[in-house]
């Protein structure tokens, strides 16, 4: 059987730069940092006291109180972004038995897990766990809640591969449509780990920036003085749809999803392979799946988390895969602005790639001050300001603890 073509017909996002996809794009375009001191808990004693939170977030703006309190914040973010994408795609009248939801989350309901454990520890040993605790905490509650709200009865589950989770969800959704197991898939991912256990845990891994005196300058991928990632939160959502199905109903088509690649480092549970072998393989796998050559790619939205080791390994891998073509690329890490959304990163970065294609504008890598002598100065990292460029093909890379690597490729639609 031949594989069916898959296009993007809806976008949604709730991010540290803005609470809708258009607001997010405005922030990306302007090169705004989403980092600020942590407001969700008292971080006085923490090594890192800032994060990229979704600003002025109040669940009551989106949910009935009774409905909202039964969902962890990561599920709330998921529903908000998914609702925007579903509305954007205008799925009225589509056969809901043929619409599925595959969501991504690296952690799930960490806030809920932490709150229930604290309450138990503070009690007298009597187990008074809330009946909503498990359904709030489990990572699949986002995909479950999206399907329940919209009555989508197609395939439904969650992918978990740490910071690659929502690129894996996009590829899974892509495959279900390609294989004719669904016509429309709502996909993406969300994360909300700005909690004591999230920040403390990542601090213990020595993975996060500790630039507390200047949070907005902390996420600086490819800068010599980078000192770790900045934790972000939020969600991104895409509606994927079979091409003929989208055309037949006159849907607005943003882009075509032409390929996805996956690989594992098989090296270390948290450290990247310094040679970037798994990352070379994942980009090669994605290019082969898309049926294009390195010369066809215009823009790579990198994983680029601003860690000393990871950024260099990815760049080395890009040069191995792209050779001389690497110098024609625009490369940028939008995590310099959004921070790292962990299981939501792949989704919001896919949205960034698609909007870059739509506007023919490459969002920047902000906070560049000092060149890293380890990185080839002939590469174009789109430092500090957005660059106009015709973007026909964009690639988004994400990698997760565990050594998971995932890469997706979008192209402007042509017949």
């Amino acid at each position, binding site marked *: 059987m031949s594989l069916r073509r898959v296009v993007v017909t809806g976008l949604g996002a709730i991010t540290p730069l803005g609470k809708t996809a258009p607001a997010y794009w405005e922030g990306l375009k302007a090169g705004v940092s989403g980092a600020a001191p942590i407001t969700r808990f008292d971080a006085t004693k923490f090594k890192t006291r800032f994060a990229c939170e979704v600003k002025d977030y109040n669940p009551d703006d989106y949910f*009935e*109180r*009774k*409905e909202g309190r039964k969902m962890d914040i990561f599920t709330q973010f998921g529903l908000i972004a998914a609702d925007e994408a579903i509305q954007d795609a205008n799925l009225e009248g589509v056969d809901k038995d043929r619409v599925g939801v595959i969501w991504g989350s690296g952690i799930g309901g960490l806030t809920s897990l932490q709150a229930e454990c604290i309450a138990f520890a503070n009690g007298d040993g009597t187990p*008074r766990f*809330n*009946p*909503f605790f498990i*359904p709030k905490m489990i990572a699949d509650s986002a995909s479950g809640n999206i399907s329940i709200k919209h009555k989508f009865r197609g395939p439904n589950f969650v992918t978990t591969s740490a910071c690659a989770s929502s690129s894996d969800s996009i590829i899974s959704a892509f495959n279900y449509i390609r294989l004719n197991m669904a016509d429309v898939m709502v996909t993406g991912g969300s994360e909300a780990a700005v909690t004591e256990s999230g920040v403390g845990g990542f601090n213990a891994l020595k993975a996060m920036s500790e630039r507390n005196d200047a949070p907005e300058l902390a996420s600086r991928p490819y800068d010599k003085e980078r000192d770790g990632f900045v934790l972000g939160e939020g969600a991104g959502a895409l509606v994927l749809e079979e091409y003929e199905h989208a055309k037949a109903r006159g849907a607005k088509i943003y882009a075509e999803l032409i390929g996805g690649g996956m690989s594992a480092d098989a090296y270390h549970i948290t450290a990247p392979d310094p040679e970037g072998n798994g990352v070379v393989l994942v980009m090669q796998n994605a290019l082969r799946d898309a049926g294009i050559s390195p010369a066809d790619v215009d823009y790579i939205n990198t994983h680029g988390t601003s860690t000393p080791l990871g950024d260099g390994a990815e760049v080395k891998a890009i040069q191995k895969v792209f050779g001389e073509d690497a110098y024609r690329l625009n490369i940028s890490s939008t995590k310099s602005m959004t921070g790292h959304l962990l299981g939501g990163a792949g989704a919001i970065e896919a949205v960034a790639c698609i909007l870059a294609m739509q506007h023919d504008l490459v969002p920047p890598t902000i906070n560049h001050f000092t060149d890293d002598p380890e990185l080839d100065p002939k590469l174009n990292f789109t430092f500090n300001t957005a660059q106009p460029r015709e973007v026909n093909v964009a690639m988004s890379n994400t990698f997760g603890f565990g050594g998971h690597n995932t890469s997706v490729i979008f192209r402007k639609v042509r017949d």
Partner: protein
Amino acid sequence: MSEIAEKVKAIIIDKLGVEASEVTPEASFTNDLGADSLDTVELIMEFEKEFNVSIPDDQAENIGTVGQAISYLEEHAK
């Protein structure tokens, strides 16, 4: 209204997101106040916590209305 009845009503209003006027003694949690099975479990747990009682499952099954909750708690609350 007794202090216990006041507190029971407040818990129901808070947990089920309903208006005070709906919380009549005859109102059924599931049929009138929109509770599902998990909401009902949560309500019972809140009553246990607020009134420092332990409500056995077989007795919890008989607490289906606002009035039943109030009379059970007026009898058992410490």
